[in-house]
């Protein structure tokens, strides 16, 4: 899938966070889907970046989920009190269920003349980021929801539709893997 969100560097722009009070305010005042997207897109891109592991997959993930949610926006607004939380949960689930299967395939109509130049990720020299990217999608989602969203085990289980035991085991495996890889990276640096 090709990212359709044009990524243009906005100089000096502080994009991102959306607090709980902001979410409540959005739930009360943001009726229009376009306004919801305009306000929350930076934070969702940041969250998608943590979830997917690279900017392009993050843009695709955000766009796919927002289009799905926007196509049934009235239903989402009536059924969920917090559409932003719903979008974040949808992103985590979409990343786990769909993303892993399709992201390695990039079907194009014509083979490009010049090979694609992969942009340099600013986290490329970060061992923890590399170890995080190498985790299976569900383990990474659990870690992101735990340390990015600051959700509890029960909330993560509810968000992902799994049991608390699954969340606990996935988090434990992920932390063990991260420790092992960080130790390996530290040993290699010596």
């Amino acid at each position, binding site marked *: 899938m090709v990212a359709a969100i044009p990524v*243009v560097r906005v100089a000096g722009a502080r*994009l991102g966070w959306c607090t709980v009070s902001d979410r409540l305010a959005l739930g009360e005042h943001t009726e229009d889907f*376009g306004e919801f997207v305009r306000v929350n897109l930076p934070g969702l*891109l940041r969250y998608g970046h943590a979830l997917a592991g690279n900017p392009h997959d993050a843009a695709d993930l955000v766009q796919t989920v927002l289009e799905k*949610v926007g196509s049934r926006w009235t239903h989402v607004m009536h059924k969920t009190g917090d559409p932003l939380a719903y979008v974040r949960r949808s992103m985590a689930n979409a990343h786990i269920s769909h993303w892993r299967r399709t992201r390695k395939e990039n079907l194009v109509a014509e083979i490009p003349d010049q090979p694609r130049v992969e942009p340099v990720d600013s986290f490329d020299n970060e061992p*923890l980021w590399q170890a995080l990217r190498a985790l299976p999608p569900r383990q990474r989602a659990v870690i992101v929801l735990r340390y990015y969203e600051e959700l509890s085990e029960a909330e993560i289980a509810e968000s992902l539709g799994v049991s608390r035991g699954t969340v606990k085991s996935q988090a434990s495996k992920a*932390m063990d893997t*991260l420790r092992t890889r960080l130790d390996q990276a530290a040993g290699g640096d010596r």
Partner: protein
Amino acid sequence: MEIDDELRRLFTDERLTLPVGEGAEQAIVAGAARRRKRRGVAGAAAGGAALVGVVFAGIALAGSSAPHKAPPAAPMSITPTSSSSSPAPSSTHRPAAPHRLPKTTRPELTKTAQPPPRTTQPSTPPTSPEETTWTANPIPTPLPLDTLPEGG
């Protein structure tokens, strides 16, 4: 440093922030509208197909519930036990008769002051001594051994 703190530090890093391109919001809103429209068209098509299916199923059910002729029963294997001058039994024998109980006149069931006069022909024609009687083939009983003629 604990790995928990490392993760929290990583997720609050400014480098995680991605810039939003111009026109991104419009692209998403347009994509959502396109999906909604596509789903509406698909839903209408599915509804139409379901309606056509229901109509066809109703027609098929109505057709199958209509009365139909029972296939003719297989004729019994019967042989006449005596010759007669009466016409062939096939002209009087009704194939469907074995399926139904024969209608008999039971006087005890019609206890009326004046029984209605019988105006219709009886279901079985009056028999005459010369008329053919139809019976099933009897199983031949074996002759006793002592009655067998001795072979010469």
